[in-house]
């Protein structure tokens, strides 16, 4: 128990502690927030500058409200006007005119609305045709500086007010709008769903297998007296020291011999045996008072009853720890699948592989890459949240003095 100190100095220290902790927490959590935010943005929003954390989409009105047919039309505004404009047609031919006598004044109109007078004028040493165009209801003389394509904007409140402007110079009217279809798109169109299924399958098999083999092995090493037990245990534990990179080539050869290349079995079978897990379970079982087992023996319980009805329920915290580590390892494993699974076989891909492929192939669709990342990182976070209460709880000794 901690002793609570009082007084202004202690309060200040505590406040500073919290500020520091909150700051660090914010720094740690920020990438996750960015990932989640980006995963729900649409293709335009991801390139908006300055970037925002809240996904936004263009505001629209129905096409009929401006007297045309088709999809809902987006809303825009212009710096020189308070009115809201509807982009009715975003691909019209536009001519840019500059008024004679006031060359800074740019007049953009539909290309058909400029009427050639036949006169010419010299601008920067070149002969240009003179046109008559309408500016604020008055016909003025101008020359055509360029032809381009842009949008036809109609004032939402005044259908007679029509402007021809470049779309990228207009300011879109935006609102909160997450694009959740990113997820379905990445899962279905980008085939991440199959990879997700594979990963879940591989992870469940690896975690289940690890728990089973670790319980059996750990119990044997902890409680069954057989010849050479301690030396075998030392050798087994020593295998933890062998780095995985050393094993890649022999393991690959082995998989080749067994015929499991490009097969999920190669991602599962070699990993259901874990020296670390066996060690973890052994240490736990060694710590369970012998008397509990002896009491069960006197109750005429068999070895397997003792193991599954008494030791395993007691070992739940250790099993949860083991399961969490096994889960994270299997879920995040990248290099071995990369070696074993053919890059041309999307049906055998696991999530980590699919994500790296997605990052390469859809590098312009950052939102989709992030959606894939969010899909990949949600299950581990959930598993951790679920399992963490077991990390702190240890019920093994509570039935004793």
């Amino acid at each position, binding site marked *: 128990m901690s002793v609570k100190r009082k007084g202004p100095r202690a309060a200040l220290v505590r406040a500073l502690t919290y500020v520091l902790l909150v700051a660090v927490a914010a720094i740690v959590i920020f990438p996750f927030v960015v990932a989640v935010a980006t995963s729900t943005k649409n293709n335009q929003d991801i390139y908006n500058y300055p970037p925002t954390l809240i996904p936004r989409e263009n505001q629209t009105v129905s096409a009929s409200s401006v007297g045309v047919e088709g999809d809902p039309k987006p809303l825009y505004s212009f710096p020189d006007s308070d009115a809201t404009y509807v982009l009715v047609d975003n691909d019209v031919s536009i001519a840019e005119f500059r008024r004679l006598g006031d060359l800074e004044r740019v007049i953009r109109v539909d290309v058909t609305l400029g009427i050639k007078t036949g006169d010419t004028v010299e601008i920067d040493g070149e002969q240009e045709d003179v046109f008559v165009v309408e500016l604020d209801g008055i016909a003025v003389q101008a020359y055509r500086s360029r032809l381009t394509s842009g949008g036809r904007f109609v004032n939402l409140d005044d259908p007679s007010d029509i402007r021809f402007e470049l779309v990228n110079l207009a300011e879109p009217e935006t609102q909160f709008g997450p694009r959740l279809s990113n997820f379905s798109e990445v899962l279905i169109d980008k085939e991440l769903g199959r990879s997700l299924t594979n990963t879940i399958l591989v992870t469940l098999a690896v975690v289940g297998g690890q728990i089973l083999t670790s319980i059996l092995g750990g119990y044997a090493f902890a409680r069954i007296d057989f010849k050479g037990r301690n030396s075998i245990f030392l050798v087994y534990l020593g295998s933890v020291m062998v780095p995985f990179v050393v094993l890649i080539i022999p393991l690959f050869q082995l998989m080749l011999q067994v015929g499991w290349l490009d097969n999920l079995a190669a991602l599962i079978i070699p990993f259901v045996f874990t020296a670390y897990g066996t060690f973890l379970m052994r240490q736990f079982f060694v710590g369970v008072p012998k008397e509990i087992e002896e*009491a069960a023996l006197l109750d005429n319980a068999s070895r397997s009853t003792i193991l599954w009805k008494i030791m395993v329920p007691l070992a739940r915290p250790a099993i949860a720890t083991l399961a969490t580590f096994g889960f994270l390892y299997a879920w995040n494993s990248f290099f071995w699948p990369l070696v074993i699974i053919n890059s041309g076989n999307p049906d055998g891909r696991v999530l980590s592989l699919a994500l790296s492929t997605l990052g390469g192939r859809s590098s312009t669709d950052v939102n989709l890459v992030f959606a894939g990342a969010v899909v990949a990182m949600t299950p581990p976070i959930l598993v951790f949240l679920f399992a963490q209460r077991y990390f702190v709880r240890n019920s093994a000794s509570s039935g004793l003095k």
Partner: protein
Amino acid sequence: MATVVFNSVSKQYKGEGPLAVDALDLTIEDGEFMVLVGPSGCGKSTALRMIAGLEEVTSGDLSIGSKVVNDLPPGDRDIAMVFQNYALYPHMTVRDNIGFALKVAKRPKAEIKSRTEDAASMLGLTEYLDRLPKALSGGQRQRVAMGRAIVRNPQVFLMDEPLSNLDAKLRVQMRSEIIDIQKRLGTTMVYVTHDQVEAMTMGHRVAVMRLGLLQQVAPPQELYHQPANVFVAAFIGSPAMNLLSADLERDGDKLVASFDGHTITIDDRAVERYPDLPDHVGSPVILGLRPEHFAMDGDADLPDDQKLTLHVDLAEAMGAEVHIHSTVDLAPVELDGELVTADDGENGDSSVSGSKTKLIAKVDGIHTVRTGDETRLAVKTHLAHFFDPATGQPLR
């Protein structure tokens, strides 16, 4: 219910070292409450665990009922055991803990329920049936462990220091409850303890062990009044018996014992109880005086030659009596090269220290004795015990 018979049973751990139990011959009768007592390492727990089948018998025959059980696994012996730390299954409720053996035996659910509840009501656990062990107090856990044993209705109960984790008050209460339960069920009980008070109060008979050897098996009173050797004499009784290396001499027709300048005459009745005593005249003997064999001068009608004056190192007023601690300049009594000490429990090192021997006398509580006083005490030598210093055997 069954008798338990040790027939020259020995136990050696890992096939080397001294025998933990050395050729134990002991018959525990059907329905008897037998207490195994001794200092730690005396082999009492090992003997118990051999009955349970948790330790293998190295040599000899161990039988329960009329069947030799040396090679029978623990579950097939029809015995139940209560452990010192209770060994409850922490993840199971009280109900499941008590009913576990019946469940393993695949008894019908209704039977498990009724037998569990019967055992629980016998122990006053009914309202705790659905709690986990961690939500129980020490005494309640102890009861659950008892319930787990009772529900089996076994041939033999084994208890391995079941009360040593309880506080003193609860220990006294559980002591009488265990006695009561054993009486009601009539089941053979083997009870291991290092606490000689438990041994004295609980057992029909008490087996005292030391270094793997059985010292004496007898009812508690006999153990106290006719110890089979100097170890039993020192171990049983609290405060422990005072053991003094005295020189035995003849003075006229009387025998006198002298030590550290004190000389006391030995009553003839003691010589009747220890007929070998006259043979040891002129040689040292171990004089055993229990604290209650002393009385304040005047309280007992004893001749002056049975009195001595002692310096009071410490006076403990207990209310009904006063314990007078004193010291005599005398090498403490040794047996097999070891100091003979009282039990390793709560009495502490009451008998010996260095080249001095401590002496404790118990006198009536009405007397006021102060630390530092000189006090004159009468010795009821007719009750004294005498042992051979070479063998530790009584001189009879």
